[in-house]
């Protein structure tokens, strides 16, 4: 077996030297395809972050009546906090609510004209899955404690706010965005598979004579295939490496500027996500390289 390892190494290296133009073509094709896929994956991650940021702004606000018993409010807060659906429950006092209101209004002077503080205190719920907001609201509406402390016990629905008017449209919109992402990435993956296997096919076609002779003198199919597969994997690794380097450079240069320009969106790309994308590129590169080689070789290896 030791001789075979030497043979494969020597043969692969010689083939690379002799057919480096073909190899370069394959490497560049793999590089560009993976770069495109990578750019889309990153865009996907960033857009996903934005969508999540927007979705997380969907909360349930419970308005409390003035002078609601503190122990009742505390009990309600504890009860909600223990609900598995709930991420956090924050208490906002009347004064804090006014402060916030002032900050959000462009002209705080108008607020100063108000007599006293008309704003109610509130409990703000963030949910683990913001899409469950309607279900949660319905659940709260039936809660006895809630009815006790609600701002308007006669009309409990008006003591709750969760963006009734916009949630459905918002979530429909984010669903479409996610779907588009997936469709694009799948399309790109298919296109790159075709691209890459075609390039490898060309490289193999250029050497069909050699393969024919190998078959003639009785080389086994795996013996013929292995150097080509190795080459495919090496090309895929180089291509993937280049793509990852380019993506990292892009991230370093473009992301800060983009975040600067689009301050109102929560733009971010964590190192972890980047590492995951890198691994995905390497794995899919190798997969595509192997699959492309195998496909391309099939017709030359018919017995």
């Amino acid at each position, binding site marked *: 077996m030791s*001789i*075979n390892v030497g*043979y494969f190494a020597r043969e692969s290296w010689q083939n690379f030297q*002799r057919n480096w133009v073909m190899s370069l073509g394959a490497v560049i094709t793999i590089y560009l395809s993976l770069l495109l896929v990578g750019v889309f994956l990153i865009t996907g991650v960033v857009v996903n972050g934005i969508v999540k940021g927007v979705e997380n702004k969907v909360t349930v606000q419970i308005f409390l009546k003035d002078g609601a018993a503190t122990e009742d409010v505390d009990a309600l807060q504890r009860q909600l906090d223990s609900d598995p659906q709930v991420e956090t429950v924050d208490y906002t006092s009347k004064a804090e609510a006014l402060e916030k209101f002032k900050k959000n209004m462009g002209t705080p002077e108008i607020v100063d004209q108000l007599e006293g503080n008309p704003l109610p205190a509130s409990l703000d719920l963030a949910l683990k899955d913001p899409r469950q907001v309607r279900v949660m609201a319905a659940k709260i509406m039936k809660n006895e404690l809630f009815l006790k402390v609600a701002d308007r016990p006669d009309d409990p629905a008006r003591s709750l706010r969760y963006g009734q008017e916009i949630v459905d449209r918002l979530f429909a919109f984010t669903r479409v965005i996610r779907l588009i992402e997936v469709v694009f990435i799948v399309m790109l993956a298919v296109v790159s598979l075709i691209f890459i296997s075609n390039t490898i096919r060309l490289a193999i076609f250029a050497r069909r*004579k*050699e393969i*024919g*002779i*190998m*078959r*003639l*003198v*009785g*080389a*086994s*199919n795996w*013996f*013929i295939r292995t150097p080509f597969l190795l080459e495919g994997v090496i090309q895929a690794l180089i291509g993937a490496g280049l793509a990852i380097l380019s993506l990292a450079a892009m991230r370093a240069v473009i992301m800060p500027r983009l975040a600067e320009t689009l301050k109102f969106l929560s733009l971010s790309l964590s190192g972890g996500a980047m590492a995951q994308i890198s691994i995905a590129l390497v794995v899919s590169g190798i997969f595509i390289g192997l699959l492309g080689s195998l496909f391309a070789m099939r017709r030359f290896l018919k*017995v």
Partner: protein
Amino acid sequence: MIPMPDQQAPDQVISAPRTGPLMINMRGVSKFYVSEKAALADCDLEIGSGEFVFIVGHSGSGKSTFIRLLLRELLPTKGQIIVAGQDLVKLKNWKVPYLRRNIGCVFQDFKLLPNKTAFENVAFALEVIGKSRHVIRTQVPEVLRLVGLEEKIDSYPDELSGGEQQRVSIARAFVNRPPLLLCDEPTGNLDPQTSLGIMKLLERINKTGTTVLVATHDRDMVDNMRRRVIALEGGRVVRDQDRGVYGYVD
């Protein structure tokens, strides 16, 4: 059966029955491609171990199909082929490379790798079947000496004449000492003088006990050598003769 248009018509099949062990045994072999017409029809043939046999016939007479069936590049539509003790119809696909290690092959267009020297071309045949470097270093120069190319061992194919290239290709086919050597028009691209040298070489290889099968158009060669001749026409064996001649008027 189509009658032969020559003087040998009355005794079409006059070869003596084979007595020794058989290298090739065909029973009722037919091969149809897509069309209705058979490329090879109902062939019964026995070729003994150590024989030297010419296959003659016009283009399209079935010679190439015959060779490709023996190499198991094709499977027969009907019938049974046994080569070197292996039943080709029952042979599993993955075992085909091992069959081919027992069959040397020589072609009209040499099929040498242009970027390898004579030595490397011959060594390649041993490398790809996993022979050790030691075996390669001893066997390759030896077989190149046998074909008369010890001087040109490091020459590339484009530095060799046609006859020399064919010698390299014979050396490659023979280096593994296969019991059967198939030659498809081995002298098709060569001048008569060079062809004679190639034929002498094949004869010498035959003397070592290797069965040699030569498909050819080369009338002079067949007439001179006086070996067994199998003539194909329209996919049928129309003549099988010990010490035969080419027998066609082209």
